[in-house]
């Protein structure tokens, strides 16, 4: 099931926990993967672990010119880009009343504007080949909101609205656009929370545990697969029941 042999996939934020797991899942299903991120070392380590069918494509998504170049680099390296996973994301948490314009702009730029540009760069080839899969990694907070994350929640909700609009436009060309909204996943990003914060969040998760990066990767693998060809404009919530949407 879920055979991606012969397909090519670009994954952003592949140096992080969830992105790395997504790259492994797609690669494990047979895809050639382009792994992107700002930190080269973890990307090289991941590439060494995966072995063949892997290309390291470092990119700083806060650099507009680098973002525009990335799809071209990915296509040059892999020959095509059938699957795009916009997973990269940053947080600059602050109370709304204390949030600086800079904190707002940084998060919107990397999480939402870069996603827009990468989608645009990927579409040409996908429309031509009449097959494409775009999976945007949103977040539960895009649907529920979260104190201290006005910028991050806005960007993640924005990804969902953008995905749906694009899904309308390209559905007739065999290109699907979906979002995956992770809940509380054990990664370096959530490690920053203190025990009190973690305890409070745990109490809200019916499953009684944090999710794993592999559980997000499995959702992405499904949406990237030929089997999910009739699923578009959807948001797949993977959150242990934390919010049943």
């Amino acid at each position, binding site marked *: 099931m879920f055979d991606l042999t012969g397909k090519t996939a670009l994954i952003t934020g592949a140096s992080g926990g969830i992105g790395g797991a997504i790259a492994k899942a797609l690669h494990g299903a047979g895809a050639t993967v382009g792994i992107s991120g700002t930190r080269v070392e973890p990307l090289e380590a991941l590439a060494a672990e995966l072995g063949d069918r892997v290309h390291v494509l470092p990119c700083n998504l806060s650099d507009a010119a680098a973002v525009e170049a990335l799809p071209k680099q990915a296509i040059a390296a892999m020959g095509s880009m059938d699957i795009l996973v916009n997973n990269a994301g940053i947080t600059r948490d602050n109370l709304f009343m204390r949030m600086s314009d800079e904190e707002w702009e940084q998060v919107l730029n990397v999480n939402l504007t870069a996603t827009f540009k990468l989608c645009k760069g990927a579409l*040409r080839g996908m*429309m*031509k080949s009449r097959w494409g899969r775009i999976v945007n990694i949103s977040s539960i907070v895009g649907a529920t909101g979260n104190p201290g994350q006005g910028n991050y929640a806005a960007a993640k909700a924005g990804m969902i609205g953008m995905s749906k609009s694009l899904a309308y*436009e*390209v559905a*007739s*060309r065999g290109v699907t656009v979906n979002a995956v909204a992770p809940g509380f996943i054990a990664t370096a990003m959530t490690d920053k929370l203190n025990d009190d914060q973690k305890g409070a969040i745990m109490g809200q998760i019916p499953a009684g545990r944090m999710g794993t990066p592999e559980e997000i990767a499995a959702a992405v693998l499904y949406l990237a697969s030929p089997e999910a060809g009739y699923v578009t404009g959807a948001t797949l919530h993977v959150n242990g029941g934390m919010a049943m949407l």
Partner: protein
Amino acid sequence: MSDVADRVKKIVVEHLGVEEDKVVENASFIDDLGADSLDTVELVMAFEEEFGIEIPDDAAETIQTFGDAVKFITEAQ
């Protein structure tokens, strides 16, 4: 008919699945040849590849008819 016009016509016929004799000078892609807005984007992409030229978005919006396309491409080459 010029070489450019022949090549443009071939792309239009293939992409929109219309009869060749419908593709005349004043034929509008959307009103006469049944294209939707996404088809026009794809046609421009196909022209760019066929002729090795870059058609900026604002120029693409002015290409409404078969004649517009032939004229633009002839001048761009």
